[in-house]
């Protein structure tokens, strides 16, 4: 890849409050994924500041970044990113492994979270034995298990058909109703329409930031 740096974001001023359900929309190359990566502490900004849960995230070590990702952020990916050689429960339990929780305990907790997404009976199955929707629900359970302050979903329905998409979205909306902060990157308008705030991006800038009228409280 080389070391050439690419200026993807050109000045972003964005604040997300606890409990929001936000979608980021934009064409590919608009910088929405990079923004999500910075929010997820997978990447770091060249300039400016980022504050998560009142903590300044800049000039931190890889080890600290890992710690923050582990405890404060739950990731959901378009391609699920489950480990193929682990069963559903083991996949869900992985964040707790990195917290040093013992195997028996974390697997038990994992089964509870699988129950929450309606997959308790699939705990012993490996990803290849599950449908796309089921896999994404496993991934959601994994994102939740460490009880993070924010859930970041990168095209969570991109690989799913419309029926399972709406199932997954329903789960995310329910989580938000329970108070979870959720950020969804998508290029599908109907997915974005289900969120309470939509941010449009183009060429590394936020071009529009509107609270969806349908969800605005009177």
């Amino acid at each position, binding site marked *: *890849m080389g070391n050439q740096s690419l200026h993807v974001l050109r000045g972003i001023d964005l604040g997300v409050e606890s409990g929001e359900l936000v979608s980021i929309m934009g064409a590919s190359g608009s910088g929405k*994924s990079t923004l999500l*990566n910075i929010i*997820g502490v*997978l*990447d770091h900004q060249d300039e400016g500041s980022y504050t998560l849960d009142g903590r300044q995230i800049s000039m931190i070590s*890889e*080890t600290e970044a*890992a*710690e923050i*990702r*582990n*405890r404060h952020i739950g*990731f959901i*990916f*378009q*391609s699920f*990113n489950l*480990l*193929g*050689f*682990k069963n559903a429960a083991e996949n869900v339990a*992985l*964040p707790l*492994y*990195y*917290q040093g929780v*013992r*195997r028996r305990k974390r697997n038990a907790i994992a089964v509870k979270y699988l129950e929450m997404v309606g997959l308790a009976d699939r705990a012993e199955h490996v990803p290849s034995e599950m449908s796309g929707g089921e896999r994404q629900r496993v991934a959601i359970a*994994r994102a939740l298990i*460490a009880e993070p302050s924010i859930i970041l979903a*990168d*095209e969570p329905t*991109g690989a799913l058909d419309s029926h399972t998409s709406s199932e997954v979205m329903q789960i995310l909306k329910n989580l938000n109703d329970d108070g979870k902060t959720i950020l969804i990157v998508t290029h599908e308008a109907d997915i974005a329409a289900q969120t309470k705030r939509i941010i449009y991006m183009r060429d590394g800038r936020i071009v529009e930031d509107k609270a969806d009228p349908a969800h605005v409280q009177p």
Partner: protein
Amino acid sequence: MFSLDQWQEILQAIQANKVRTFATAFGVFWGILMLILLLGAGQGLQNGVKQTMLLDAINSIWIIPARTSMAYQGMPAGREHPLIEEDIESVGENVAGIDLMSPENELAGEFDVKYRNRSTSFPVFGADSEYFGIKVSQKIINGRSINRLDDVQRRKVCIIGEQAAGIIFEEGVDPVGEYLQIKGVNFRVVGVFSFESSAMDQAQRIYIPFSTFQGIFNTDRDVTLFAVTTAEGRSGKQLEGDILKFLKQRQSVHPDDNGAYWVHNQEEQHRNVNNLFLAIKIFIWLVGLGTLTAGIVGVSNIMIIIVKERTREIGVRKALGAKPASVVGMILQESVFITTVAGYTGLVLGVLLLEGMNKALDVLGADLQFFNRPEIDLRVALAALAVLIVAGALAGFVPALKAARVKPAEALRNE
């Protein structure tokens, strides 16, 4: 870092990639197996050659008079100058640095060795009791050796090689105490010896005390050859020179005549053989370590590929909170684990093969002239294992660093 949990993670990763793991392990397995077999074979060669070439005490010197090659004091070249008993005694009295010393004569001419009504033919030698301290490859397996009193009292006793004993005596007869008739004279068998060498049929020999031999068969008092051992702390080369100098003067041989005596200095030969084996050992280690290095480089290569293949997995793990140290530990531990298990398997199989070879040689009674008892030093084997574990860590090091540098944002990008 080495928790049970991490082991489970690694075993799971290994199980998920059986073929890949096997391919990785095989290089190391093969390397260590070859190293062990080579070392064992080298040791076998060494044992075999030592047995064949080093029949006598390491510090022994054997001297046989030959024809002179230089004219001296009016006498022409090509003169014979046989030793007589007085020469030997004189050497013993005048040359310093001798520990053991014995003459040796062989009974010449046609004769039978008779036992009751059986007639056989075996070479008969006369030698002093000290002779058997010089010819260390002869071991008494029944009865006793020829002793000082036999020498002094000129007893009519003999010791016989086990091959001769097997032919002369019927199964079940204890040779010790029986009488053999040599050239009409009866000798009581006092011992049977084995000859721990595959090279010559010296186990067919019959020895009688030198004094007896001279008194009965050789009244000329001449001596074919004699052997000495170097006293502790003395140089064999020096002693050889001293004896020759003394003998040349006594027998009027030109001081610079190098052909007048045939000398076999075991110390010299021992040094040569040892040098040869040092060279062979160095060679074996070079080849073996080369093979092993190839195996380890293979592990390193495959681990790099593994890291590449697992980039996404590593990215996921990092996104979920895996710290760099945990990722490095995972790859390193996997590498060390694979190398150690594979290496240990190769080690055990190599040792088993060597043992099997030993057993087979034993069972078949194979008497290979330059090969005997292939074996490996336990310490060498353990050292090899230690080298392996370190090598495994080294092999995993570069890939582990590569893994640590995986950027989760790039690894997780949707393809």
